[in-house]
């Protein structure tokens, strides 16, 4: 399931819902991305998340479908927020449920790696020096490449 929203989410409730009533599930893997502020001259007062409505949902659905094609998943969930977020706030939740631990863990890792390179979201940071657009990190492309070929 895909959700793109301004509002926060409740991880415990989301994971409970993912497994509810399905006793074939042996494990749930999840990843939550948070707004971080490392302090110092790069202090981040807030993050602003912009996205491309329509294409975002389409890409997230494709990524989720690909995960289900690769691993035996019972259920999966991607929630991604947009708008203004402060340090410590949740940005994204990716969760996967499977009868098998390995499948849940690998698929969760895959989902967040692909989301980072394929979902049309952009972050700008509010810093003491003004607004700063976050740049794409080469590690993110490398992380995705690991799942290819």
């Amino acid at each position: 399931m895909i959700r793109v929203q301004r509002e926060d989410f409740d991880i415990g409730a989301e994971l409970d819902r993912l497994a509810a009533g399905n006793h074939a599930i042996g494990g749930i893997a999840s990843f939550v991305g948070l707004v971080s502020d490392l302090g110092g001259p790069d202090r981040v007062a807030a993050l602003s998340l912009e996205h491309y409505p329509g294409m975002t949902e389409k890409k997230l659905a494709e990524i989720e479908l690909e995960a289900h094609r690769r691993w035996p998943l019972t259920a999966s969930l991607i929630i991604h927020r947009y708008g203004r977020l402060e340090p410590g706030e949740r940005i994204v939740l990716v969760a996967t449920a499977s009868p098998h631990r390995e499948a849940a863990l690998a698929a969760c890792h895959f989902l967040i790696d692909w989301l980072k390179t394929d979902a049309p979201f952009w972050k700008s940071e509010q810093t003491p020096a003004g607004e700063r657009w976050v740049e794409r990190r080469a590690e993110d492309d490398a992380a995705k490449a690991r799942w290819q070929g």
Partner: protein
Amino acid sequence: MKILYFAWLRARIGCAEEEVSLPAGIADVGGLLDWLSSRGPRYAEALRDLSVVRVAVNQEYVGRDHPLADQDEVAVFPPVTGG
């Protein structure tokens, strides 16, 4: 043709969305980007380094040689940084 701009491309061009008629002779994404650059200093500046410009046509990532039609929705943006 609808053109959407996101992130710092939107900020530098100063426009989130515009309707343009595809000029005669522009057949693909590469041609469109060249034409956009010629539309004024803000466009020229924003599109100066095309290595950090991505394009989606009808919400699919495409390369520079992707053909264009007048009904297309074209989005121009920097590499994504979500997650």
